[in-house]
């Protein structure tokens, strides 16, 4: 008998979803651009050329130059590294916190659940952007602080998701069997239940990366994210705003890069969800 395993089944469905594939290609392209930045970028992103300040797109500078004569395309290529890093680290932090708290709440129930879930409610009361802004400005803006703060303020959704998974999984036969075999709580939580709850985590993490990239770009745009001279798509847009009446290219291209990247992650995330469980399709 030849039954397809879950991965084969997943891949068969995923392959048919053209939008999801397109999203995957965009995400792969972002990886490639970040890793190959030193070879891809036509100029040194920090090279200041006073002779070509705020030049529009041309053959020499396809996306124009900024107010210091630096090549915008090169700065955007290096800026992709920020987006890649922020997405992964911030979501990694959020996922770990959310996974641990959600697992504890769902597995132990009772007062543990009550305390953790009230804390989730509490964190959801804060306009997230206010909280992030306050913490970042106090901690001094830097890429690491941004990633940590976006992660620490963004775990509540994951916690709720994992808790719901644990509530349904903890009374299944395989868990009872593990307990009967003498497994302790830690072993049951991390080795038996958690692996079965990984699919929704993967989906929410992929969509979370998109959100983290948007938040980072907004923070950098406000001047409290990645600090110049390090290029990020958000802080190039700040220069676009400062030169709004004379240099449209500083505003157009970095935003387009954010849009395409975020769209890519969103399509990929939705595609993974639909392929994992077609019943969840909206």
């Amino acid at each position, binding site marked *: 008998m030849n039954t397809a395993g879950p991965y084969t089944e997943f891949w068969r469905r995923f392959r048919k979803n053209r939008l999801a594939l397109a999203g995957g290609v965009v995400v792969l392209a972002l990886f490639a651009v970040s890793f190959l930045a030193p070879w891809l970028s036509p100029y040194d992103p920090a090279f200041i050329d006073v002779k070509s300040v705020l030049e529009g797109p041309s053959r020499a500078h396809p996306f124009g130059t900024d107010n210091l004569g630096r090549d915008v395309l090169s700065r955007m290529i290096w800026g992709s590294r920020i987006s890649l890093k922020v997405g992964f680290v911030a979501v990694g932090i959020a996922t770990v916190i959310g996974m641990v708290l959600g697992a504890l709440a769902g597995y132990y129930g009772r007062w543990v659940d009550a305390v953790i879930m*009230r*804390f989730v*409610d*509490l*964190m*959801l*009361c*804060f*306009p*997230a*952007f*206010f*909280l992030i*802004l*306050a*913490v970042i*400005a*106090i*901690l*001094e803006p830097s890429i690491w602080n941004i990633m940590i703060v976006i992660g620490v303020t963004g775990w509540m959704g994951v916690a709720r998701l994992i808790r719901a998974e644990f509530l349904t999984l903890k009374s299944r036969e395989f868990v009872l069997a593990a307990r009967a075999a003498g497994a302790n709580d830690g072993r049951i939580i991390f080795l038996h239940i958690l692996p079965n709850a990984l699919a929704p985590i993967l989906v929410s993490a992929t969509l979370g990366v*998109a959100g983290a990239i*948007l938040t980072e*770009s*907004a923070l950098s*745009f*406000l001047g*409290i994210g990645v600090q110049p001279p390090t290029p990020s798509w958000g802080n190039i*847009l700040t220069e*676009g*705003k400062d030169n*709004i*009446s004379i240099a*449209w290219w500083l*505003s*157009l291209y*970095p*935003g387009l890069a*954010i*849009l*395409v990247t*975020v*769209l890519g992650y*969103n*399509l990929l995330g939705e595609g993974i969800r639909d392929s994992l469980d077609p019943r969840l399709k*909206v």
Partner: protein
Amino acid sequence: MLQYVAKRLVLMIPLLLGITLVSFVVIHLAPGKPTDMATMMNPKASLEAKERLEKLYGLDKPLHVQYWNWLKRLAVLDFGRSFSPDREEVLTKIGRRLPITILLNVLSMFLIFVVSIPIGVYSATHQDSLFDRATTVFVFVGFATPTFWLALLLMILFGVNLGWLPISGLKSMDYDQMSLLGQAWDRTAHLIMPVLLSAFGGLAGMSRYMRANMLEVVRQDYITTARAKGLSERAVIYKHALRNALMPVITILGLSVPSLIGGSVIFESIFAIPGMGQLFYASVMSRDYPMVMGGLVIGAVLTLGGNLLADVGYAWADPRVREGRS
């Protein structure tokens, strides 16, 4: 109904306390003090002067004492005074800015409502039509668009190139010399872009949500019943289906309050609108502890208020909720 509202209000109290505690801890555990700023600006300031400043602000006391004192004053709505040179009351300052932010958010919520509901209903009733596909694309692109970037592009197009709309502030410099009609238009023109843009993110989400609700509702038995008894399709959709599909939207509107308030930081700083978001941003940048605390607390209270309104609206629309049945 009154009993339901009262119960909800009582349940809010522990959340409120939690909000104040989280804000307090976040801001005070961080390295750096406002006195650093004050003394750094002035190289002649001695250590002694710095200590005097700290004493003045109560920063020399242990953390829990500071919190308790602050909470006691909060109970009588005293948020303290701003650290800025004018030393104004935090509440007065916020009170002056808040109406502007609320006005902008109410307008954009209204816009979200009137635009996304028809879109969602039409997409659902004409599933897989050209319109439905077009809105699906719009929704996906809308979710991925950084709204501050869209704001920049619109400013370049309508403000700089076409010159149709102003790009900053709430009124023009020569506002006082305008006729009444001119003043009304001036106000409106300044609001168009900020309101449109802050509604933009919600539009995508809400039309998607409305479409899903509608699709869910039209599959229910009571819709089949309505059709079976010979009602026109119009009556079925707009009287029977729409009302039920609208219910969850109430909740979503309430839940979108924090993101709208958070977004106001971005829009108000792009369009130079003197609202709560801009004030909060400025206070954060100058480490004005009392202002930041006030802003965080007020922001969270507004969110709680939004949730309460949503719950009450839901209970009003659905008797099962207010009687505690599920």
